[in-house]
C-alpha cells in the first residue's frame, strides 16, 4: 500500500500530461493538466521548506552538543533568522519588513551581503583554474593534446588581445575558428551529446511513469 498508491499517482499524473500533448487547446484534458501543473508547483515548492527545516535542525543539534565548530553554527542560525523573519511580515505593515525591493531588511541583506559573497565564492575559481593550468593540464596523451591545443586557440580567439594576435597570421584564423570549430565540430558533438542525453532523460521519465524506476521513493 505504501508503494502502490504513489506508483499509481505517478502513473496517472504522468500519462495525463503525455496524452494532453496530443489534445487540442480548450479541452477538459488540457484544463485538468493545467491544474495538475499548478498543484505540482505548489507541492514541489514545499521541498524548499524541507531544506530549511533540515539545515536548521542539523545546526541546532551541532550547537546543542557543542560539536566541532559549534560557535560558527550559531552565526549560521542567527543569519537564517535575521534574514528570514522580516520577510514574514507584509511590507505594508512597515516598509522595512517584508521583501520589497530597495527598502526592506531582506532585500538589503541580499544585495549587500549574500550576493557579493556568492559571487566571490565563484570568483576564487579563476585562481584555481590558473594553478591547475600549470600543474594538471598536461599533454599526457594524443587526446589530451588535441584538447589543450583547441582550448588555447579558443581562449585566444575569445579575447580582444588574443584576436589581435591571431589576426597577425594570414587566413583569418578567428573566423575559421568560429565557423568550423565552434559552429562545426563543437556544434556537432554537442548535438550528439544532446540527443544521447535526451534519450536518457526520456527513458528515465518513461520508467518513472510506469513505476519501473522507484529509487526516488526510497527504501520500502
Amino acid at each position, binding site marked *: 500500500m505504501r508503494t502502490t498508491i504513489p506508483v499509481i499517482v505517478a502513473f496517472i499524473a504522468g500519462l495525463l*500530461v503525455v496524452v494532453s*500533448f496530443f489534445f487540442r*487547446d480548450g479541452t477538459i484534458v488540457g484544463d485538468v493538466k*493545467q*491544474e495538475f*501543473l*499548478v498543484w*505540482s*508547483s505548489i507541492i*514541489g*515548492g514545499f*521541498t*524548499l521548506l524541507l531544506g530549511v527545516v533540515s539545515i536548521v535542525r542539523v545546526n541546532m543539534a551541532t550547537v546543542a552538543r557543542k560539536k566541532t565548530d559549534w560557535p560558527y553554527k550559531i552565526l549560521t542560525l542567527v543569519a537564517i533568522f535575521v534574514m528570514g523573519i522580516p520577510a514574514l511580515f507584509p*511590507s505594508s505593515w512597515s516598509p522595512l519588513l517584508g*521583501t520589497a*525591493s*530597495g527598502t526592506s531588511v531582506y*532585500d538589503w541583506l*541580499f*544585495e549587500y551581503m*549574500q*550576493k557579493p559573497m*556568492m*559571487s566571490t*565564492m*565563484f*570568483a576564487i575559481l*579563476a*585562481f584555481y583554474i*590558473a*594553478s591547475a*593550468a*600549470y*600543474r594538471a*593540464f*598536461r*599533454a*599526457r596523451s594524443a587526446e589530451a593534446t588535441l584538447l*589543450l591545443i583547441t*582550448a*588555447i586557440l579558443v*581562449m*585566444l580567439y*575569445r*579575447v*580582444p*588581445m*588574443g*584576436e*589581435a594576435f591571431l589576426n597577425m597570421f594570414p587566413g583569418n584564423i*578567428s573566423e575559421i575558428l*568560429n565557423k568550423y570549430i*565552434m*559552429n562545426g565540430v*563543437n*556544434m556537432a558533438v*554537442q*548535438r550528439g551529446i*544532446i540527443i544521447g542525453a*535526451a534519450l536518457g532523460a526520456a527513458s528515465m521519465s518513461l520508467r518513472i511513469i510506469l513505476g519501473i524506476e522507484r529509487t526516488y521513493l526510497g527504501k520500502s
Partner: protein
Amino acid sequence: MSFWQKMEQIDRRWIYLAVAVAVVVPFLFPTPLPISISPEARSLYDAVEALPDGCNVMVVYDYYPATVAECEPIAVAALHHLFRKNCKVVTLTNIPYGGPSMAERVTRRMAARYGKTYGVDYVNLGFKYGYVTVLAGMGQSIESIFPTDNSGTPLSQLPLMDSVKNYSDVSFIFEVADNATADYWVSIVNAQYGVPIGCGGTAVQAPKFYAYVASGQFVGLLGGMRGAAEYEKLIGIEDVATVGMQAQSMVHLLIIGLVVLGNIGYFVVRKQSKKGAA
C-alpha cells in the same frame, strides 16, 4: 634539483599572485582594444531590432548571484535595447536563490532610466517552484501559474497583464541563464509554442547552445562577458563588460602561458627521469 623540478613544486600561491596582478593591471592602465562581433551576437541583435515597437517581450533571469559578473551585463544590455524600442517587458525567474530580487532590482533600475511605469510598461512575475511545470503551465495560462506579481499584486490589477495571457501574446523571449533551464525553454516553449528565444548564457553553458542556434531554436547567442561586450557594442552603450574584456585578455594570456610552461616542465622532467633510470 634542476630548475624545472623546482618549478614543478612551486607554491601555488605564487600563481594566485600572478593572476591577481594580471587582473588588476588592466584597470590601472586601460588600453581599449577593438571587439569584433560574432555572427551569433549579430543575429540576436537583428532579431530584437526586427521586433515591432511596443510588442510584449519576456526577459528571464535564470541566473544565480554567483554569475552576476557574466549575466547581469547581458540582462542590462537587453533591457537597454528593449526599453529603447518601447517593448513591454515581463520578467520572471526560475532561480530560488536570489532570482526574484535580482529581477526586481535590475529591471526597476533600467526602467527608471527610461521613464517606464510599473504595471503598464513592465511587470516582474517573480519565482514559482518547478521550472518544468512553470514553463509548461504558462503555455495555457500565465495567471494560473503566477496568480500575482512578485510583490503580491494580483495580475488582474496590472494593466499590462491584460494583454499577456499566455505565450501566444509574447513576441520574443530573452533568456539569460547560467544553467540548464535554458534547455527547457528550448524543448518546451520554443518547440511547443513556437515563441522565438534569444539566449545570453555564461561562457560555461555557451558551447552547448551552439547546437540550438544552428537548429534555429535560439535566434542568437551571447556567450558570457564577451557576449555582453559584443551586445553593448551593437546597441552603442559600452559599459562594464567592455571594460572587463582587457582584464580578460591578460588573464587568458597568463593561463595560456602557464599551460605551456607546465607542459615544458612536464616533458623536461620526464626526459630527465628517463635518463636517470637508464
